[in-house]
């Protein structure tokens, strides 16, 4: 049983014109097995929240705390946070030229497990994970995200989620850019990871469609750098119908 606890999180981004405050006090608690959806207008700070928890160097934490099972995540380097059990599926996965997917995955799993996996069982694991996400085996020899289509990048993120077995996963718009079939395939991957590892999920999305596959226990409305309303799955339907007008503006 794990708990990710975010308290009063304030974050600013460093720009040429100085620091700009983006997150203005975020409170959120995610436990193993729970699914929390965050919905909110463009630019409200959802990705900033995701990146800040994962430790992206672009953001400065100006207040608040983030802990995983009581341990301060904000003091940790990015890789230490991953080793503590955190995973971020990115809105825009990064291309890494010259580094093959299989080399990348092997290096990652070795780092996370503290020892190199047995070659034979690992090859099988990767093959199964790729098959489950209907990815061509040829992706293993391609360079990380290089030339992948938008949807292929998202499948690759969820394949990593299944292979790396984190405790808490943040999925930043994993559903954006997926066709109808891919959305189902990717969602099933998330559900499998939840069932297999009692994963806690923070799912950032603009659409209710993915929530039909991955049922949220809680829905949070995010606007102007903080959570402005919380509810159950029904809140998502209401947002889809009415938009964010009542939350934005000042």
């Amino acid at each position, binding site marked *: 049983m794990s708990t990710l606890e975010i308290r009063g999180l304030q974050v600013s981004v460093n720009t040429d014109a100085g620091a700009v405050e983006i997150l203005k006090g975020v409170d959120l608690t995610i436990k193993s097995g729970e699914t929390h959806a965050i919905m909110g207008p463009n630019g409200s700070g959802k990705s900033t929240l995701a990146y800040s928890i994962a430790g992206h160097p672009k953001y400065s934490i100006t207040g608040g705390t983030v802990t995983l099972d009581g341990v301060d995540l904000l003091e940790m380097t990015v890789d230490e946070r991953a080793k503590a059990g955190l995973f971020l599926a990115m809105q825009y996965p990064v291309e*890494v*030229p010259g580094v093959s997917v299989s080399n990348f995955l092997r290096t990652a799993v070795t780092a*996370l497990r503290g020892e190199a996996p047995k070659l034979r069982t690992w090859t099988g694991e990767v093959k199964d994970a790729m098959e489950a996400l209907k990815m061509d085996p040829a992706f293993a020899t391609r360079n990380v995200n290089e030339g992948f289509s938008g949807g292929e990048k998202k499948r690759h993120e969820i394949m990593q989620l299944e292979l790396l077995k984190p405790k808490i996963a943040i999925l930043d718009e994993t559903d954006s850019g997926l066709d109808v079939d891919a959305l189902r395939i990717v969602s099933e991957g998330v559900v499998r990871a939840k069932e297999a590892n009692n994963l806690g999920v923070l799912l950032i999305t603009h659409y209710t469609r993915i929530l039909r596959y991955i049922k949220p226990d809680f829905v949070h409305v995010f606007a102007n750098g903080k959570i402005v309303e919380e509810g159950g799955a029904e809140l998502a339907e209401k947002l889809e119908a009415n938009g964010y007008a009542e939350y934005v503006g000042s």
Partner: protein
Amino acid sequence: MSLLTTNYLSPTGREEAWRFTPLKRLGGLHDGTAKVGERESLSLKSGASGVSFERISRDLAPSPTETDDVVMQRVREGAHNVATLTIAANTEVAEAITLSRSAHGLDSAEFSRVRIELGAHARATVIMENTGDAFLAEDVEFALAPGSNLTFVSLQEWNTGSTHLAKHHAIVDRDATFKSITVTVGGSLVRLLPSVEFIGQGASCELLGVYFATEGQFFEHRMFVDHKVPNAKSRVNYKGALAGQGAHTVWIGDVFIRAAAEGTDTYELNRNLLLSDGARADSVPNLEIETGEIVGAGHASTTGRFDDEQLFYLMSRGIELADARRLVVRGFFNEIVTEIGDAVIQDRLMDRIDNELAKAGS
């Protein structure tokens, strides 16, 4: 000892061709004050049938293409023999032919002339391994007869303290293909002048290179591709990394498309990765075009630091900073190193790159 009699105009450092080179560190190779020994250190390590290697008196060897490089002029006056590797016409050599130079000392300079000749439709890979202590000025000429195909790998893995100046000039005839992969990772000062001269239509070249300079090392790669006939194709791609105080690399890519060279297709690229402060990468692509009737001509040059987004992505999967940097640097060089096509050499180079990176610290 050779007696050098000609009065050459020694470079002062103001000449375009010498403006980046630290002349003081050439040990007198540029102004004739270097003591020159009688060594001939190049040997054939592995040959094959249809392949001959012999030292030919320079009076009997074909005369080399004119050069305005003073050091090469001195080499031609000083070297009595031309080490000549010949691959007979229509010979396909499956295994790589290896030439090696090793540990020949720093007391006196070696002036060396080399000629690599491929007969019509011959096909071979030649690897030139350079290790040990070098004080060397080297003039290499390649003659590729019509339809021949040469892959030339030159490995500069010299010890610290070494100085190596070389010209690699390829004369490429009709439908012949010259591919070179130049690796410079060792030595104190290395200055290489790879050049290609197309003399027949349908000829092509691919000049690839990697270099990694650390503290105090100076590596210069100065290309010249001369499109003097129609329908030839050239590709240049050099990648370099630098780390440490005083690491300095220079890449110059001169491509000349003459009026007669209609249908030319050329592209050159140089990318540099600066891994620390105090290092400097100069990169100057230069395209001179005398005809508009071409297929394509372009160039690009970038010099940058580690990409934060790449490191973040890798680290977010649990990979430590040092390992993430290693993956990114290996990935950066991978595209060119794999072109060598020899697993032993490739692994050795990648290990060396890892070590250089580790030494450079984070």
